[in-house]
């Protein structure tokens, strides 16, 4: 098994090192790093803006570039949170706790250096995990019939909506809403238009780009206009020479990095728990097992190393269920899945065997991309820091322009720009009502395929619902669903006590902008 993995990986490097693939990978991580640094721009919005631009491209470079944006943004986000105490991206909210005190002590450079090392270790482990785990999962998944696939999707949807931030009940409601939005358009089997309200443009369904850009672009701009904090740049002066951590710091940070990496890769495997949860969990663990927990929050280097390592390992691990099973774990993955579908690639277990170039090329590009990011970040740190001072008032109008033209260019259709606007306003209303829009996208991407498999399995069983219980694997998935719901009800019933007991001790996390909660 190892030898086949190595040959496949070798092939992947061959794909990823093709000049134009390499170029797009570089472009992806560069853009990702850029938006990671800029406060107020997230990877979700960026990927949706870039998505229409990839229509003319081959699928391989398109996917390499879009994924590059995702993990590139994680590198950039660390800079922002350590130097400015601004958690631009939620996984890095924890990094602020110790990163900013370090910056105040004049050790911001060291913290960044440690971050980059931790990131690289975490990412490498996540990639290795993907190399060995994904083919294994695929072998299992190839046995799946429609009954198993639909119950597996149910698990993914439930986990994605309940484990994310905010009320689980509202999360599920949003997922269902997303599923319903996914049904807009012609019915796959009979061709009957559904929910089109007589609008011809809706017969093809709601465009994923319009949905994503409406929810995470327009809605966020509405939310954050005249609402952003002024950036305090007084500590943000870092040169290359400050970046190399001392031996003592490295020694302190080594084990936390390893622990963070392992925790992160574990979190990546549970659908719905992305990098954000991974970094919070690992920070809490590190604090608990540390001999000097009082140092945390006042500039402990472990408090930077551990969450960063776990963020990056779970970012890479996130790709495992998406690529091997076709079940996205979070919003970014849902978007990437959408990108695959747009490029005519059916996600699912057959992806690795049918589109080996995409899968192994992607894995190889992760490594290349991470190395590129280290190269980009170490010597050019000064430039990134300068970028932090771009004010939001220049950013968002340009971003809106990209939104407009991106949506238009997707189909050369002005109707979609209007659609995006309408979705954006709806998204803002939902946001004000405390509904997080991230599960909508999850439901939207999975919706049509869920329906297809559900109907097919009922067709095979002649309308007998027992089919889902008679197949052992799908029964197992259903059990997980029941457990998930039961756990939520349990937590909900206990909540009054838990809140009273634990609220004061919870870490004071800086507020994050909502759309970032999704990624």
């Amino acid at each position, binding site marked *: 098994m190892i030898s086949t993995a190595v040959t496949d990986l070798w092939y992947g490097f061959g794909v990823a090192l093709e000049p134009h693939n390499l170029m797009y990978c570089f472009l992806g991580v560069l853009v990702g790093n850029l938006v990671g640094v800029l406060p107020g721009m997230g990877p979700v919005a960026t990927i949706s803006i870039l998505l229409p631009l990839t229509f003319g491209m081959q699928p391989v470079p398109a996917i390499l570039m879009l994924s590059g944006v995702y993990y590139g943004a994680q590198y950039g986000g660390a800079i922002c949170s350590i130097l400015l105490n601004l958690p631009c991206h939620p996984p890095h909210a924890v990094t602020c706790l110790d990163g900013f005190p370090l910056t105040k002590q004049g050790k911001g450079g060291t913290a960044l250096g440690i971050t980059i090392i931790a990131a690289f270790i975490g990412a490498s482990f996540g990639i290795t995990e993907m190399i060995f785990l994904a083919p294994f999962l695929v072998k299992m998944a190839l046995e799946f019939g429609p009954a198993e696939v639909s119950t597996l999707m149910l698990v993914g949807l439930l986990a994605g909506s309940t484990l994310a931030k905010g009320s689980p009940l509202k999360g599920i409601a949003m997922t269902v809403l997303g599923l*319903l939005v996914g049904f807009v358009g012609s019915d796959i089997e009979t061709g009957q238009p559904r929910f089109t309200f007589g609008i011809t443009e809706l017969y093809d369904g709601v465009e994923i780009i319009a949905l994503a850009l409406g929810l995470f672009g327009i809605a966020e701009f509405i939310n954050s206009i005249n*609402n952003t904090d002024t950036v305090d740049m007084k500590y943000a002066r870092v040169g290359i020479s400050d970046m190399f951590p001392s031996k003592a710091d490295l020694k302190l940070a080594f084990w936390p990095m390893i622990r963070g990496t392992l925790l992160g890769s574990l979190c990546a495997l549970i659908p719905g728990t992305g990098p954000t949860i991974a970094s919070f969990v690992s920070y809490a663990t590190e604090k608990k097992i540390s001999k000097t927990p009082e140092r945390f929050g006042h500039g402990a280097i472990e408090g930077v190393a551990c969450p960063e390592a776990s963020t990056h390992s779970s970012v890479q691990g996130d790709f495992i269920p998406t690529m091997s099973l076709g079940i996205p774990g979070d919003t970014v993955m849902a978007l990437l899945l959408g990108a695959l579908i747009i490029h005519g690639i059916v996600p699912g277990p057959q992806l690795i065997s049918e589109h080996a170039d995409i899968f192994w090329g992607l894995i190889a590009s992760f490594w290349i991309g991470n190395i590129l990011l280290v190269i980009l970040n170490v010597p050019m740190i000064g430039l990134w820091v300068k970028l932090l001072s771009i004010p939001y008032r220049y950013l968002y109008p340009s971003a809106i322009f990209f939104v407009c033209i991106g949506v238009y260019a997707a189909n050369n259709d002005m109707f979609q*720009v209007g659609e995006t606007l309408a979705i954006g306003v709806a998204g803002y209303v939902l946001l004000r*009502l405390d509904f997080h829009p991230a599960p909508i996208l999850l439901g939207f991407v999975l919706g049509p395929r869920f329906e297809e498999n559900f109907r097919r399995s009922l067709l095979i069983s002649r309308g007998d619902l027992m089919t889902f219980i008679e197949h052992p694997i799908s029964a197992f998935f259903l059990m997980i669903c029941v457990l998930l719901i039961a756990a939520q009800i349990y937590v909900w019933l206990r909540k009054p006590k838990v809140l009273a007991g634990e609220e004061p001790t919870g870490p004071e996390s800086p507020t994050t902008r909502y759309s970032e909660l999704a990624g």
Partner: protein
Amino acid sequence: MLLVGAGAAVTGSGYKIGSLAKMGPGFMPVMLGIVLAFLGILIAGTALGSPKTNDTTFLPDHPQWFGWLCILGGPILFIILGQYGGMIPAVFVCVFVCAIGDKTATYKSSAMLAAGVTLFGVLLFHYLLSIPFPLLRGVNL
């Protein structure tokens, strides 16, 4: 207590959507509509049941009517001007209108930003990616 309203809205739309579709192709939508309606009731129930009355209003503390208007107005103008005027006026007006939504922005800085973005956009989208979107309708550039 806004959550109640939200619950009701979700419920309402759930039912409407559910009963609208026919059986067969409409089977899943009906089912999900019912689920959504049920969830709406649950959400409303928990909102009513919790003793804490949250006095959060629907509008944020400082409503930015002008900013919102600008953000929405930009793309609307983009649609109109894009349809009848072409890419250059559409992009310029869209960015300009969006930019003046910010409190600190001046007309001059917005115009400069809009000009810059227009130039960049034309170069990238028209010449590099060559999307079919005439720079100026009626004028052959």
